[in-house]
């Protein structure tokens, strides 16, 4: 018996499933004391989600949110990576953009959402611009640190062996930046999620955030729950099936890498 138990406690997936089961069970027990409109049980919410997808247009709203997220994310990540490398290598640009980045980090994200609504009205820009502007300083700071931490002894090695500049960038610099890129990507992605829903609540007429706001105005907690859970499921899916897989591929040379 203890052997079975040991096997279970060492199996990460099994423990994770167990943990979620406990959470759902607790939720169910608490929900027994309330009406479904205020605090619905798991099964009730599950049915609502199915209904939102089959009878409503949940897929459409989810799709809109994902597209906005990706556009803003790639713009912010691209700008941030470029600036991060530049500020890490060149001292002048480090100082020049350093202060701008600090201001960017301090700027309340909600302000961008409000301002873009004032400027553009109901437009996709209301999502793209805040995501980009909030993500890029975060990415810049992280990539700048990564660029500064480059192991110069490996670059010297490549130079001694007369490797051309492009070969050094591809095989030495980029792999050394990889841990920073991956870590930043995850953090930036989760930040982008939060921002996109906020902007949708404020200034857009579609997307997960818009639906959350819609059901909030109807004061229908069960649907708010349902949409929040749709959101969480997608985030977990992206984490487990995209980021973890990329990590495994990129860092397979690390013997201790167990994710």
């Amino acid at each position, binding site marked *: 018996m203890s052997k079975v138990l040991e096997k279970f406690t060492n199996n990460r997936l099994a423990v994770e499933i167990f943990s979620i089961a406990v959470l759902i069970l607790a939720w169910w027990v608490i929900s027994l004391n309330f009406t479904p409109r205020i605090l619905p049980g798991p099964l009730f919410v599950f049915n609502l989600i199915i209904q939102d997808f089959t009878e409503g247009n949940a897929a459409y709203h989810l799709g809109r949110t994902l597209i906005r997220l990706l556009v803003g994310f790639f713009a912010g990540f691209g700008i941030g990576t470029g600036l991060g490398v530049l500020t890490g290598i060149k001292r002048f640009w480090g100082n020049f953009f350093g202060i701008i980045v600090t201001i960017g980090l301090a700027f309340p994200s909600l302000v961008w959402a409000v301002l873009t609504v004032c400027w553009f009205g109901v437009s996709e820009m209301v999502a793209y611009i805040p995501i980009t502007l909030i993500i890029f300083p975060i990415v810049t700071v992280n990539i700048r640190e990564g660029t500064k931490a480059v192991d110069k*002894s*490996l670059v*010297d*090695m*490549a*130079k*001694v*062996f*007369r*490797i*051309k500049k492009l*070969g050094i960038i591809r*095989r*030495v610099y980029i*792999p050394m930046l*990889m841990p920073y890129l991956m870590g930043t990507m995850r953090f930036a992605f989760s930040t982008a999620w939060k921002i996109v829903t906020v902007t949708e609540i404020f200034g857009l007429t579609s997307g997960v955030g818009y639906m959350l706001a819609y059901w909030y105005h109807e004061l229908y907690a069960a649907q708010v729950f349902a949409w929040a859970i749709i959101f969480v499921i997608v985030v977990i899916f992206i984490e487990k099936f995209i980021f973890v897989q990329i990590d495994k591929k990129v860092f*397979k*040379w*690390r*013997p201790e890498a167990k994710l």
Partner: protein
Amino acid sequence: MNGGKEKMTAAIEVKNLTKTFKNMEGKTFKVLDNISLKVEKEEFVSVLGPSGCGKSTLLNTISGLEPFDSGVILVNGKPVGSNGNEARIGYVFQNPRLLNWMTVEKNITYALSGTDIPKEQWKGIAQDVIKIVGLRGVENSYPLQLSGGMQQRVSIARALAIKPDIILMDEPFSHLDEITAEKLREELLDMWQKTKVSILFVTHDMSEAVFLSDKIYMMSAKPTTIFMEYRVKMKRPRNKLDGSLLKIEKKLMEKFQKKCAFSAEGIAV
């Protein structure tokens, strides 16, 4: 050659090399002071000196990584870094300096990508040098899966792969345990004899220098210059525990002590 009379060009010839550094206060001081040395083709030459005497700087200068103030460095008879000097320099560093994200074989072919050796030959060459350093079977492993000794073998294989005019070695065994280091020293001599490569080896280990070298240059820390050249005339294969090797070591140690007490402190016996 002209009637066979012309002397064979040396693998490396350094003449009156001087290099200065500026410290924080802007004061200049000499890190290399009028250094001259020569490594003939197929020769195993060591530079022996205490830590901090500028041995690594010497190798970095020869390899072109660091500039120098005056003097001449000829690799294969031509100045380093000059146009048309296709001299290939293999370098085995103190730490293996492998790219941990590439397999053993890829680490070796990466060095080949800096040469004009056609790509079709890379795999074959990599296989050959992997065999020479005794690493068959781990071609597709990643460096971090290997022990320190094996990583240093990969580093040696990488240096051999480019068919170098000279291999520079910077205390390559100093980070290894003594048993592994001893084994690698013996194997290094085998590889050297098999491949007929020229080696310039830097060390602070007296017995290592005497065991490996045809010729030893002794370097002091203050001033940072070569004060003596010694030719080890012992036949190979040598035995580390041989009395005459130990006698040579004793003699050289006395020279260091005479030169200056400070230099002798940093020499391991």
